[in-house]
């Protein structure tokens, strides 16, 4: 019994590692998301869960920029705002269905990403942090002052999503739409992180000069990360408009950008499961702790410092070693067979 107790931390760690490496982790997460409304499906619960999903999408998008590539983006809410406003304006003023606005939003997000990332990514990476901070303000103030964005009162009456004649604007329909979209977004970001481009991103994060010496066009690859983040943010903005049916400038302050960053950092930069859990934690926690609202942001700030000093990799760190995909393993085996080596089962 005593030996059991003595080894329990090590055992817990081994168990945690096993959970972390489980290839069905994502499916379990998806199942939880799909089944959650069967436990509680009040309008309030659904709206909290939908917001949490949106937050997951934003955090996963920011993770591409901050986690994979190591670039600090402090104005991520700007892309979120661009997505929400572009789709909102097209839907309310020009009567487009929400789905038709998707390509336009993507184009707008890419253009914004190039405008901001283009000049700044050539410079030291800390310039990007402060320029994106300024960019966040530019977008918010612009939305506040233009007439087409409805000024301070914003845009209201944004329609819900219609797909093949099926109305998905109710709370349940919207929730499941979000589950599908966010699941695809999480999967897409994770696959992107494991791709050739993703490896280049992580190389740049670890050592930009070495990456450049190895022949990676660091500027282009960084820009790709930044644009990738922008697209994720813009698409989340469409869902945000569909959920609230009204958007206004105060929804897109620096506070949002900071909270998304918080989710990424706390969960573990570069780690998809970590970031997803971090986002759920950050978005659901305030609902559970209503009384502590005043202390919340103060604690978040302190927490950011503590995490950076004592546990930089976050609560659920990214694995250093990539899991071999089945295809790669098969190829390696074939290669070994051809060389006449004994195949280890």
């Amino acid at each position: 019994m005593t030996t059991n107790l003595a080894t329990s931390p090590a055992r817990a760690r081994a168990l945690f590692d096993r959970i972390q490496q489980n290839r069905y982790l994502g499916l379990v997460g998806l199942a939880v998301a799909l089944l959650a409304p069967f436990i509680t499906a009040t309008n309030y619960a659904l709206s909290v869960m939908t917001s949490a999903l949106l937050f997951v999408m934003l955090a996963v998008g920011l993770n591409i920029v901050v986690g994979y590539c190591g670039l600090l983006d402090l104005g991520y809410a700007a892309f979120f705002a661009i997505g929400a406003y572009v789709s909102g304006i097209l839907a309310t003023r020009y009567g487009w269905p929400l789905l038709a606005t998707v390509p336009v939003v993507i184009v707008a997000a890419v253009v914004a990403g190039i405008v901001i990332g283009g000049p700044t990514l050539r410079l030291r990476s800390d310039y990007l942090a402060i320029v994106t901070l300024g960019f966040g303000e530019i977008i918010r103030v612009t939305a506040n002052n233009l007439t087409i964005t409805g000024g301070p009162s914003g845009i209201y009456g944004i329609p819900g999503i219609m797909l093949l004649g099926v109305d998905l604007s109710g709370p349940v329909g919207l929730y499941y739409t979000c589950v599908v979209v966010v699941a695809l977004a999480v999967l897409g970001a994770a696959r992107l992180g494991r791709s050739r481009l993703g490896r280049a991103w992580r190389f740049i994060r670890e050592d930009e000069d070495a990456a450049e010496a190895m022949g990676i066009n660091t500027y282009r690859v960084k820009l790709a990360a930044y644009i990738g983040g922008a697209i994720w943010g813009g698409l989340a903005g469409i869902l945000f408009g569909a959920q609230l049916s009204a958007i206004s400038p105060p929804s897109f302050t620096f506070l949002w950008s900071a909270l998304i960053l918080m989710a990424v950092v706390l969960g573990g930069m570069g780690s998809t499961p970590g970031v997803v859990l971090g986002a759920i934690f950050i978005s659901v926690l305030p609902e559970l702790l209503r009384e502590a609202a005043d202390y919340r942001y103060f604690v978040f700030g302190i927490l950011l410092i503590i995490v950076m000093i004592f546990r930089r990799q976050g609560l659920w760190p990214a694995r250093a070693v990539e899991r071999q995909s089945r295809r790669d393993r098969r190829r390696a085996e074939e290669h070994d067979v051809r060389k006449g080596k004994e195949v280890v089962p």
Partner: protein
Amino acid sequence: MTQLIWNGLFVGSFYALVALGYTMVYGIIRLLNFAHGDLYMLGAFVGFGVLSVAGGLATGLGFVALLIVMIISMLVTGTAGLVLERVAYRPLRGAPRLSVLITAVGASFALEYGMRLVAGPNPEVYPVRLAGDPVNLLGARITVQQVSLILIAILLMAGLQWLVMGTETGRAMRAISQDPTAALYMGINVDAVIARTFFIGSALAGAAGVMAGGYYGKIDFLMGFIIGLKAFTAAVIGGIGNIKGAMLGGLTLGLLESIGTAWIGGQWRDVFAFSFLIIFLTLRPTGILGERVTERV
């Protein structure tokens, strides 16, 4: 037009004071101290607190009281800067840049919302106002208080210039900004000098905070956010890491803003300023006075 230039110079001197702290810290340890704008906010609130406690005594004295309050608040914000450096930044010296930047964001958040806990979310009204009667000078309306605030700003900057160029501490600072390791070998107490830099930069921000509180009359816990961004813009325009550049950049940004707002409307002020940041970074990232900085490996 003269009025616009005057306003620009006046606002610009605030920007310059805050930009100095930014640029000093950046010059010496290459750290973007996001919390710098919040130290300015802290300065304004400390001044507010002291003035409220002193009460009637202070309001009677007006300008002199504000000067004394400014010195107290410079000491407090300077100390806050010291603590911040010791607790949040020193443990991370040598850590990846991203971690330090995130720590700085956390520090900024903690200061802002810590102040919100102490002082409440609503704006406070400064008990001492520096309105004064305007005097006409070449078609611009200028108050004695504005002139004295600018004079104080100039005095502080001159003092800083003397400190950096004329004292032993200043020489140590310049040495560290060139090569911290070599400076260490030469017997410079690097930690102590960096701490001093933080103290001075934060104290200047605190002074600007009290001046802004006394002049504009209204303070709130988020007031440091925008000014921090503007000060950074000013530092970049002048050439970041360069002390004279920060002063020049502050005044330039003040003038650009003042003329730009008259031209396209006040609600676009911040957009105008930040667009300048982006344009400057595209066309001349080293700023007006900056030298070409090569990234060292």
